């Protein structure tokens, strides 16, 4: 396929806390190994976004210090544009803070509410305890069905609206809220997750599913060829063994 995948990296200046660069690097390399170019456009705060000309939008996780900057930039119009792009079926990968941002709001544990872009019906409530550590979940059928391993570190508990599907079901760890067994969100072509680590390099099946989703919006019959994933799977399996010591026996 002589095409280029256009990746829009939203807020690389604000949302870059947990190795988010690794997700970009991973997508770029896995495409390059198959002879596909990736064109990465960074859209920092203050810059104009051109979501219509992107095949995939990536949003990482950040810290509270810069949150005001982020919210005021969203309000300058990016919120509506991003929402429209999502409704339009753009492929989006959103991690941690970037994931929360797509919902309705974040309410801190002492009751301060921060409005988000309302692209997907869910909300997040801060808790005093952090959900932190290596974790694993199995993606739903619409997300490729692979087992994803990563590291979660969030105090926000996310609750999905009725009819909104999680990205997967927790095998070990907390996920969205530590209560309902769901992790992340899956809506149209949006993949939202609390998994940093970063998520893509050691979950090659998930990464390829994401890339394929993005490519297929322009080339519906396109399939990615398999790669030599020995290093990737070794890293994946090592984490899975540490969080689920019986994983091999039970065939996960």
């Amino acid at each position: 396929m002589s095409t280029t995948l256009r990746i829009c990296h939203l807020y690389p200046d604000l949302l870059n806390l947990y190795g988010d660069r690794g997700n970009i690097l991973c997508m770029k390399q896995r495409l390059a190994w198959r002879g596909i170019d990736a064109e990465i456009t960074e859209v920092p705060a203050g810059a104009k976004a051109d979501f219509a000309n992107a095949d995939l939008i990536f949003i990482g996780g950040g810290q509270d210090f810069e949150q005001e900057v982020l919210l005021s930039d969203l309000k300058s119009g990016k919120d509506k544009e991003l929402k429209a792009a999502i409704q339009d079926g753009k492929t989006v990968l959103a991690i941690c803070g970037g994931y929360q941002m797509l919902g309705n709001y974040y309410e801190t544990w002492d009751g301060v509410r921060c409005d988000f872009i309302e692209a997907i019906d869910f909300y997040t409530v801060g808790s005093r305890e952090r959900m932190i550590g290596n974790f694993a979940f199995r993606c739903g059928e619409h997300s490729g069905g692979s087992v994803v391993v990563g590291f979660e570190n969030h105090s926000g508990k996310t609750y999905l609206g009725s009819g909104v599907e999680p990205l997967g079901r927790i095998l070990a760890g907390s996920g969205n809220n530590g209560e309902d067994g769901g992790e992340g969100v899956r809506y149209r072509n949006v993949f939202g997750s609390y998994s940093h680590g970063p998520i893509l390099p050691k979950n090659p099946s998930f990464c390829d599913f994401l890339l394929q989703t993005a490519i297929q919006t322009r080339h519906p019959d396109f399939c990615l060829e398999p790669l030599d994933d020995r290093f990737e799977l070794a890293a994946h399996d090592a984490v899975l063994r540490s969080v689920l010591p019986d994983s091999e026996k039970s065939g996960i």
Partner: protein
Amino acid sequence: MHFIRVFLAVLSCKLSRWAIRLLGRGGTAFPGRVALKICPDVLGVVSRNVRTILITGTNGKTTTSRMVEQAFIDTKKSYFSNKSGANLISGITAEFCMNATLTGKAKKEFAVIECDEAASKTVLKYLKPEVIVATNVFRDQLDRYGEITHTLNNIIEGISHSPESLLCLNADCSLIASIPSHVKNPTVFFGLNVPLERGDAKVLSDAPHCIHCKTEYEYDYRTYGHLGGFRCPKCGYSRPTPQYAVTEITAQDVDSSSVNMDLNGRDLFLHINLPAVYNIYNAAGAAAALDAFGFQRAEIAGALASFDCGFGRMEKFDLEGTPGRMMLVKNPAGCNQVMRYLAALPDAAMFVVCLNDKDADGTDISWIWDADFERLSTMGDRLTRVLVSGVRAEDMALRLKYAGVPADRMEIIHDYPTLVERMCQSEDRVFIMPTYTAMLDLRSTLQKRLGGKEFWE
């Protein structure tokens, strides 16, 4: 009644330390915890009348402490230090108790104390140093410390308890340099007036936005990470002019650096007995602290030319004929500096990375994706072999694959004796980059094979 508590605290500290040593262990935290349990403010009593230099910050604490300490050794001063990384309230308390009489009187005149940045807010409630050196704040162990501004706030809170201490601050770190806006302490700054990178260079910055108004900084030049000649275009906050400034780097090689310094108006040539740019910062901080403390220029230069850091800070090993160096890494900023040092070496090298994710390392290893391992692949054929080990070896190997290290040059070896065996067989220099607990394990394996003193001595 308080003096009885002090007596009991110091006594039990000494006894438990003695008992632990008798068991052949190097524990330093437990005796301190015992003392604190008996007398929570014992540190305030036993540190009274001890003229102390305290060093805190994310990176460079240990090295700066060793540099400072060397001047005390050379001038035969009556001093002590917390050597073995016992830099929390418990370890620091233990060290002061061990150097006090049973009635709580100090036995030594001076102390050189390294203090964990998060612990500084508690330690400084009791300990009142004459000089406090703050090296830098970098993103580090987010699972433990939380946000980078949280770390800075801990340091500020600590300093607010000790308003008389002279602050010796890194002018090039926009976070550290903001401390004087919160406290009234007398302050001097140190820094590098040496543009190592252009102001508009794309670098990994842990603090791109103004600490006061959150506008993106502009840089006249950069040194590394977020360090350099920063200024905020909106509120005007900018790098203060350092009284202690490195004005020129005259030489850098595999073992050392040479620099010219402006030492508060006087010239000083320094030969620094460790390589790499981050150690030039450590030297500048140490020189500033020593000058402020009253040391002579020749004594400062002598200390920096001869100090020996050890304990994984560019520590030298003789791997049965093969020269080896161990460089502890804790965070992306420090790791990038090690990469920069390695990539600039002229000779072929073997590289060994040991990545653990235990509590003391940080359980979140996502930072390896922010660190610039791509620099390794610029070494080309000079990078002859890469051995990967540690609890998270597979993650590390994957990171190196994406950084462009050829798979056929990489090998995962979990077993430390085998790893050490392979290092000893190397024909090229060996550079070992472990995280903290990996360093402890690896050092003990190395000591078994090569001999050497125990680390707590």
